[in-house]
């Protein structure tokens, strides 16, 4: 097994103990995300307007704002699920339009509001991403990923029999299976009950801290932003209202 494979396997599986010792283990591959005058409008309606922000490697940035503020639209531009109508995004200084979209999306993983699992088993869902890159996850790697998201022994479960919380955990594990360098989270707990939501939140927090992943999370829950994010930006009508340390930005909210 090559050193690169060892590194990748470790990154995929994660190390639960690393939560307790963030500096332990391999140097994580993490990236800086930067938006430059990022804008998008559809049919004359402005969804995202001239947003320039910089997310440091390993930093967690929360995007908050009222419904229709453009939070999800902003997030979808970061892995180019939608095309900007103005501006661009840079990954470690490189314009993301210089990357093949498929490579970009493997490096910048995304967990959506609804899990959107593929019909079949949990294991098949986890293996999907790496297989698109010609890699096969071993059963040990799948087992370890499921262990990490709190679903040990779920490999052969049919996804149609999962609860909302379990489905979202599988969705997170499926994204992590690609060993992304940055993680985009689009209100990953908004469709869940309080207990499941808190469980997912704690799981996400522990994983992004242990991997020191660059993370952008959209949330309408300012309490959640307080718990997770180093910095927070507020959007209104597609425009950046303010950005700064979470405690300062959300002080009066």
């Amino acid at each position, binding site marked *: 097994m090559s050193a690169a494979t060892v590194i990748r396997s470790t990154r995929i599986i994660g190390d639960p103990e690393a939560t307790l010792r963030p500096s332990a283990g391999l140097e994580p591959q993490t990236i800086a995300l930067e938006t430059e005058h990022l804008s998008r409008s559809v049919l004359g309606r402005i969804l995202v307007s001239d947003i320039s922000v910089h997310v440091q490697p390993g930093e967690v940035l929360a995007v908050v704002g009222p419904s229709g503020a453009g939070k999800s639209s902003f997030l979808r531009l970061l892995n180019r*699920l939608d095309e900007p109508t103005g501006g661009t995004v840079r990954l470690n200084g490189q314009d993301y339009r210089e990357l093949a979209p498929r490579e970009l999306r493997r490096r910048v993983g*995304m967990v*959506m509001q609804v899990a959107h699992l593929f019909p079949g088993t949990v294991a098949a869902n986890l293996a999907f991403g790496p297989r698109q890159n010609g890699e096969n996850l071993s059963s040990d790697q799948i087992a370890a990923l499921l262990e990490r998201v709190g679903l040990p022994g779920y490999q052969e479960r049919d996804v149609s029999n999962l609860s909302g919380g379990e489905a979202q955990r599988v969705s997170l594990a499926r994204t992590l299976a*690609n060993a992304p360098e940055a993680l985009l989270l689009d209100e990953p707990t908004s469709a869940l009950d309080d207990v499941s939501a808190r469980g997912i939140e704690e799981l996400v927090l522990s994983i992004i801290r242990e991997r020191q992943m660059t993370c952008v999370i959209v949330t309408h829950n300012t309490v959640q932003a307080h718990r997770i994010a180093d910095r927070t930006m507020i959007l209104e009508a597609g425009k950046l209202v303010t950005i700064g340390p979470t405690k300062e930005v959300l002080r009066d909210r």
Partner: protein
Amino acid sequence: MIAELLNNLHSDIAMGVAQAAGAIVLCAAVVLVCRRFAVHVERETAISLVRGLVQMVLVGMVLAVLLHGNLLVGVLILLAMTFAAAVTAARRAQDIKGSLLLSFYAIAAGSGVVIAGMLVTGTLTADIAVLVPVGSMIIANAMNACAQAVERFRADVTAHVGQIEAGLALGADPGVTVAPYVQSAVYASLLPRLDMLKSLGLVWIPGVMAGMMVSGASPVYAGIYQFVIVAMILAASGVAGLIVTLLMRARVFSAAAQLTLRSAEQHQPPPYRLAKSMPNPS
């Protein structure tokens, strides 16, 4: 003798008009029944009936003039029919750029390959009186297959935007993310033709066979020939359904592998989904 011919012609037309009137009355009755269940198809049915009747009368007149034309005339007529079929099929995909051209390519490829094959093998003669009616059957079925494939693919893609984008977000090739919907679209386009083939002779005896028997052909040969025609219809439909779906697949993604086909509602998602209409308990 001419007077006798005209008399016969007039009596044929008079009988045809009476039969058409009877058919229209029956359709109107069905429309009234639908109306009772709040299914309003009055306008569309009226337009379709008038269009269908006028078109068939015109085609009859044109065929009467062209009946003794050569192969080139026959090919031109079939091309015109293919274009008209493409216009009809493309209505199912108005939100897809170039849908008319996609439909034309698919129908022309499906029916063209099959008609050419039949001409080469001698299954179909170049006689315009045979070529045009048989060709039109193949084109019409290729059109239906094309429309059914387009409709199914469009409906499946817009209903599974989340799953498709989840696949894209995991670095999948766009073709992989819509593969299940390509399969179901092609299958949906073939299914009616497969049923048609299965029920051949049991549920229906198609017009070609009936016409041949009336003209004095052996019933067994007429039956076999009809089977050949329906099998060719299946082949043409398969090619048309497959080609239009593959062409559509390429059109629903941008060059940057972004899904561009959404329903109008999905372009600007509201926090809730609207039902199609208010359920009416009555």
